[in-house]
């Protein structure tokens, strides 16, 4: 019953999306407004209803729905019954459509007297994209498909997905991917616009900003949750593996980063409009290509939960259509947006431009690495692998100049600045960087070139922010209005996000360069030393969880003074329903380091293989990501202005 209602709601959503598309093609403004109001609200309500229906079917374990049967089980805890809705291909498409409808609604809310044709065009494109995904869902991946006879119980689902971080990872990521659809629609709408006046067009670019910020911000935190999950679930103390699916989310993130910053340049200096239009189109195309790579199962990867060629072909065709249309439009109509303004290196806009280009180079390289095995295989039949070592040797060196420029960016003004003045302004930074770097290298007690570079970058970004803040503050105090144009204002959002990046670099560097590892065989009662900590393997217990059995180790950790710090309980779990096993690492975190224990194989005679990691400063990776997220949120709030004088 509820499932039928859900299915019906998808069809109604299709109807509303179609109405919006057709209505936006009309000439009569009054009619457009009337129909688009109904369509935008209807699409939102019914896509939400269908999504809620699916959630309901999961909660009550309605196994007459094939999707529920395949991905759920009565023994599953409630929270994971709900997260199972988007933990599979069909259900996640419904979420994807809901997010499209939400963004569609916010675009609709922008309607006012001056931007009428622009918003209408945006809604038209957004409706087209939504239609594409609705048809995709209905034709190839309907989550409400029935099965008969109704099975007694479900097949359960992949237990490594039964996890809090992974429960919210997909929704966050989807807000990111789908958010770029709004940027895409705006970009195409601007290209379709007839208004030649630059001033009016700048206002349109302002509309794009909160949407791009939303997409980028949520993509950031979505990726961070995926990494946190990988960190404690995969059991190797690592958090980024250059898996093709990770790359699929990283590529739009890189372009999103470029886009977010370019939009600032558009607002402040009225430059880079053409550039922004292209970036917006590419970000969304890459998001969809990412979906294609994941869903088609074309890449062998842990995330490939759908292996159905018809889906791949559909998405590929969809990418071809929207890609050809938008890029052709761009090459035909973008000329009027090219600016011939003066851009020098030593200016805020110069630093943004340089960073943009580096982000695109990194994105192109990651793309190359991800699809290269596919290309080689289809041309020569040879199978090759492009793994972590490739990306580390290509991407990391290219990123370094971007981070140097990022550090100096806030120090620069929107106009030209001369080099000696910059050097003079940077002088305190050099001292700070020197002291800070010496301090950290001294703490870790070992020299490593990558460690050194990472710490210098961290100090550089941080010191620039601190000193710019100080100079801003003293200037405000003394010469309030006089120097207004000389020293750029630093917004809180930018400050927070950039400090986040600095801390992220610190965490990434320290945890990858100064990680310590012990792999040993231990019997209960034995102990081992790792970096001033004494770890005692106390006992091994058999426990029973809600839908799994586990072997649980009890480890006691003592510090140098023999004081008990913590008890750690890593587990080896077996989920008998699907016959899957997982390892659950036990982690003790503080601001200085993570202690990370994994229980391996073995038996009571020989002892068990235990892996212990001492991971310095890992928590700063997550704090950094959180700060970037917060900076994004603040900026989003400051930039969203729905029409107050709506029509």
């Amino acid at each position, binding site marked *: 019953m509820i499932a039928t209602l859900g299915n019906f709601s998808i069809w109604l959503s299709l109807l509303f999306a179609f109405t919006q598309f057709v209505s936006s093609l009309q000439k009569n403004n009054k009619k457009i407004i009337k129909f688009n109001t109904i369509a935008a609200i209807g699409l939102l309500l019914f896509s939400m209803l269908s999504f809620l229906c699916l959630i309901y079917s999961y909660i009550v374990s309605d196994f007459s729905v094939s999707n529920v049967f395949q991905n759920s089980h009565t023994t599953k805890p409630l929270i994971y019954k709900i997260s199972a809705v988007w933990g599979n291909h069909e259900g996640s498409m419904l979420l994807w459509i809901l997010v499209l409808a939400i963004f569609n609604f916010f675009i609709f809310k922008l309607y006012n007297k001056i931007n009428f044709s622009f918003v209408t065009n945006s809604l038209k494109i957004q409706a087209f994209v939504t239609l594409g995904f609705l048809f995709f869902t209905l034709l190839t991946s309907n989550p409400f498909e029935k099965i008969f006879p109704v099975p007694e119980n479900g097949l359960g689902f992949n237990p490594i997905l039964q996890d809090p971080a992974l429960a919210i990872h997909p929704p966050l990521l989807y807000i990111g991917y789908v958010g770029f659809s709004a940027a895409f629609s705006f970009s195409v709408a601007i290209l379709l616009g007839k208004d030649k006046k630059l001033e009016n067009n700048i206002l349109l670019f302002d509309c794009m900003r909160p949407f791009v910020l939303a997409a980028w911000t949520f993509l950031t935190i979505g990726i961070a949750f995926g990494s946190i999950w990988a960190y404690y679930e995969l059991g*190797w103390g690592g958090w980024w593996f250059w898996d093709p699916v990770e790359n699929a989310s990283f590529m739009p993130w890189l372009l999103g980063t470029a886009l977010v910053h370019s939009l600032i340049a558009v607002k402040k200096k009225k430059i880079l409009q053409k550039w922004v239009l292209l970036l917006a189109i590419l970000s969304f195309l890459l998001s969809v290509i990412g979906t294609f790579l994941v869903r088609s199962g074309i890449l062998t990867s842990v995330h490939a939960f759908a292996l159905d060629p018809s889906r791949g072909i559909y998405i590929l065709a969809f990418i071809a259509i929207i890609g050809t249309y938008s890029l052709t439009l761009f090459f035909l109509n973008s000329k009027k947006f090219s600016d011939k*303004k*003066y851009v020098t290196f030593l200016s805020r806009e110069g630093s943004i431009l340089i960073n943009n280009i580096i982000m695109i180079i990194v994105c*192109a390289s990651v793309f190359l690495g991800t699809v290269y095995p596919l290309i080689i295989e289809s041309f020569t039949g040879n199978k090759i*692998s492009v793994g972590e070592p490739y990306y580390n040797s290509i991407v990391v060196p290219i990123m370094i100049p971007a981070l140097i420029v990022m550090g100096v960016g806030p120090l620069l003004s929107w106009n030209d600045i001369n080099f000696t003045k910059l050097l003079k302004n940077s002088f305190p930074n050099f001292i700070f960087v020197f002291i800070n770097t010496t301090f950290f290298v001294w703490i870790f007690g070992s020299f490593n070139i990558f460690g050194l570079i990472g710490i210098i970058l961290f100090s550089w970004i941080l010191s620039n922010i601190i000193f710019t803040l100080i100079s801003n503050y003293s200037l405000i105090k003394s010469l309030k209005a006089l120097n207004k144009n000389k020293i750029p204002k630093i917004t809180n959002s930018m400050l927070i996000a950039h400090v986040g990046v600095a801390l992220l670099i610190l965490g990434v560097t320290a945890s990858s360069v100064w990680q310590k590892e012990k*792999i*040993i*065989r231990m019997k209960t009662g034995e102990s081992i030393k790792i970096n001033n900590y004494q770890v005692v393997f106390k006992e091994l217990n058999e426990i029973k969880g809600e839908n799994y059995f586990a072997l649980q180790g009890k480890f006691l950790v003592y510090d140098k003074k023999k004081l008990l710090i913590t008890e750690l309980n890593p587990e080896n779990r077996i989920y008998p329903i699907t016959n899957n096993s997982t390892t659950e690492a036990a982690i003790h975190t503080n601001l200085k380091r993570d202690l990370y224990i994994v229980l391996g194989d073995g038996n009571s005679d020989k002892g068990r293989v235990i892996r212990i990691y001492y991971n310095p400063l890992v928590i700063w990776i997550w704090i950094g990501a959180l700060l970037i997220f917060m900076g994004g949120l603040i900026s989003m709030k400051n930039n969203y202005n729905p029409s107050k004088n709506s029509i």
Partner: protein
Amino acid sequence: MFFTLVFSIFFLNEAYSVDPEEFLQNSKLELRARNITKNIRCLVCQNQSIDESSAPLAKDLRLLIREKVEEGHPDSEIYKFLEERYGEFILLKPSFNMSNFALWILPFLFLFFGIYVIFLHNKKSKNF
């Protein structure tokens, strides 16, 4: 009763993930061997190195690599041996050869092109 049964079925068999007994006594050689195993793909897993894998084949390869390192073969020879025996797919870091030329060169071309674009923009702007 059922409880013990489950444990005896699932937990008593020895798996094949990294085991300290595999390690070489000589820490310098061990470091080299470990590094090689991190760059070799587990052929039966999904996107994992043999260092992380618990598949029997991965264990065999780990032992094989350590044997070779102990016998005094240089890294390049070991990589080459593995590539000849199992195909290029086994190398997580693709080798620099004719068909992988673009993979290694293009990022640098992107970089030069990017620098060129920046300079071009700068020059054009100044003339304006």
